[in-house]
């Protein structure tokens, strides 16, 4: 099975990347404030919905049903969209997807494109591919614009500039945004106004828009984009040509299924009852919006993910990012440590499956398995289950295998286990005053790099029970 390529391959192992990020106290403070704000908002609006669990169950089941019928639904989508005037293209991996989009933009002779925030185009590295042939792609989502101006990479699926606070954003605008007022303050409305002025000219002159899609409806051929600022509407409405890059798992069988997902997605992602703007379009509407529309359906490791019976539930993901905002690991290390455009708990299961076990092999360990991500997931992806499954599938070092084999021999027999505990207690008696140990000597130092070692208790439960 062929795997995915592009910006989903971590360049360095998670533990190394995480250690660097952990040194940044400002980053941790920014992340903590942002994730706690958003998760509190989410809890409030989810609490308003009496049938939330029913919606989650339906959402999960609809997505599972889609995965079971994907070939037929993709063909149906292609047929409906084509009938409505769109042109449908297919791409096996990131490079092929970039080639298709680049060719389509070149056919229009445009030198620049305006972009709606889209994970799929981030995933395939479209901006870099367009830049390589001299086409400038402008991100029009405020957070994406901040990240693009800073020549940084996004660190969150929904709020890509979550790692910056207002004064950092002001500094980025002052130094990188052409024509910005020198006296720009760090007041959020002032910053938003600066972005509005900067982008307005681009919206009104752009002839090509590039988007992703949150959903692609098989029975009608409709694409759906969910957003807040109206930059999406600008890109989807004003240009003559619209190119949408869509993962093959974004299909929903019928338009009516949106009744579930338009309830689950906004409340889970931004903690709003509904996002300010949702746009839906079907092919071409004469006299209204782009008169040439393309859809590029991408695989890029999704079918490899579909193959795994346990792991395929990751393809239910609707990119709400609720799992990021509740994850104790994400909250401390931020999105960059994950090395993929998909960070956090969902990224820890999605990226390694899309790229294959070779790349990203440390990501399934980037979790405490606390389960908060599963509780928050609107489509009930059992992320801890998939993490454990991927850890089991991954290669194990020989020393670890030997250690666990001996441990298993000891634990199979109660007398052996009790004897081992007594021995451990005797061995550790001189260390008792410390409570816990920070470091063990090599080779166990590999384990204590990121963990403390608890000392055995003075008494086991069984011993305590016998005495009573």
């Amino acid at each position: 099975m062929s795997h995915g390529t592009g910006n989903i391959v971590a360049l360095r192992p998670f533990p190394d990347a995480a250690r660097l990020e952990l040194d940044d106290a400002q980053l941790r403070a920014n992340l903590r404030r942002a994730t706690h704000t958003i998760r509190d908002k989410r809890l409030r609006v989810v609490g308003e919905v009496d049938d939330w669990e029913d919606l989650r169950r339906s959402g999960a089941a609809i997505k599972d049903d889609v995965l079971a019928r994907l070939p037929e639904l993709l063909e149906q989508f292609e047929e409906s969209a084509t009938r409505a005037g769109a042109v449908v293209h297919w791409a096996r991996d990131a490079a092929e997807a970039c080639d298709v989009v680049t060719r389509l933009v070149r056919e229009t002779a445009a030198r620049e494109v305006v972009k709606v925030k889209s994970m799929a185009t981030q995933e395939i590295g479209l901006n870099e591919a367009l830049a390589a042939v001299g086409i400038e792609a402008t991100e029009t989502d405020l957070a994406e614009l901040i990240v693009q101006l800073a020549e940084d990479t996004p660190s969150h699926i929904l709020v890509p500039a979550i790692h910056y606070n207002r004064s950092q954003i002001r500094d980025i605008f002052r130094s990188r945004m052409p024509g910005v007022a020198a006296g720009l303050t760090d007041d959020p409305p002032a910053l938003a106004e600066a972005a509005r002025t900067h982008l307005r000219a681009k919206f009104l002159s752009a002839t090509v828009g590039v988007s992703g899609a949150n959903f692609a409806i098989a029975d009608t051929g409709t694409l759906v984009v969910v957003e807040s600022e109206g930059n999406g509407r600008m890109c989807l409405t004003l240009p003559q040509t619209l190119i949408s890059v869509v993962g093959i798992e974004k299909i929903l069988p019928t338009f009516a299924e949106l009744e579930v997902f338009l309830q689950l997605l906004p409340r889970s992602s931004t903690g709003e009852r509904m996002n300010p703007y949702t746009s839906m379009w079907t092919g071409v509407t004469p006299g209204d919006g782009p008169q040439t529309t393309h859809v590029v359906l991408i695989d890029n490791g999704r079918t490899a993910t579909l193959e795994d019976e346990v792991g395929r539930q990751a393809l239910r993901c609707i990119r709400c990012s609720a799992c990021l905002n509740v994850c104790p690991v994400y909250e401390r290390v931020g999105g960059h440590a994950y090395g993929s455009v998909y960070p956090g708990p969902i990224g820890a299961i999605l990226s390694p499956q899309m790229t294959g076990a070779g790349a990203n092999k440390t990501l399934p360990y980037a979790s405490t398995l606390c389960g908060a991500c599963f509780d928050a997931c609107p489509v009930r992806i059992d992320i801890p289950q998939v993490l454990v499954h991927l850890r089991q599938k991954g290669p194990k070092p020989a020393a670890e295998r030997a250690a666990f084999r001996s441990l298993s021999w000891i634990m199979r027999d109660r007398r052996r286990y009790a004897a081992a505990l007594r021995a451990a207690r005797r061995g550790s008696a001189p260390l008792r005053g410390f409570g816990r140990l920070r470091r063990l000597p090599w080779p166990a130092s590999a384990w204590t790099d990121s963990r403390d070692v608890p000392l055995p208790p003075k008494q086991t439960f069984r011993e305590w029970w016998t005495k009573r």
Partner: protein
Amino acid sequence: MSDARTEILARVRAARPASAPPVPRDYRRDVPGIDVVEVLVDRLVDYRAGVHRATAASLADVLGGLLASSSTVVVPPGLPAPWIPGPVLRDSSDAPISVAALDEPGVTVVTGAAVAIAVTGTLILDAGPDQGRRVLSLVPDHHVCVVWTDQIAGGVPAALSRLPDPTRPLTLVSGPSATSDIELNRVEGVHGPRRLDVVIATR
């Protein structure tokens, strides 16, 4: 090597699960026991939209008050003429209003809506004759939307099922344009209309 379409479809066929369990549908089709008008008003106010009430008889007066400070009033082709007695710039397929004209300062657009969703405070525009092209409710800085009380559904499922044709261009509007990208502070008026006024009218 086969083409991308053939190969992807073959991969999906080989990798897909044998079957999926049936989809449970235990969620609510509608939200019982709420006053849809009051809930819609509450949600719109929460989004910091302006909310106004009218009857069929008072609609022109209410709109007149909202449009008093506008230099130009733009309306879609099918907006009923009696709603706005003064001069309007009427969009049409023969002579579409340019984006530059819509972008002028002081332009207000007045539209109807197809359906509204009470619990989410959402207006759905489906490019019907009284709503027009998507660009009309996008580029001007001020959008006034007239919603009849019989167009308000309680929840999302009830509202979507009322749409006559989902393949029309659809725009769901929940409050004015807003961003939360700077320390998650909600800031209104990024790219869409900075001001949204909703007139809830009784027929």
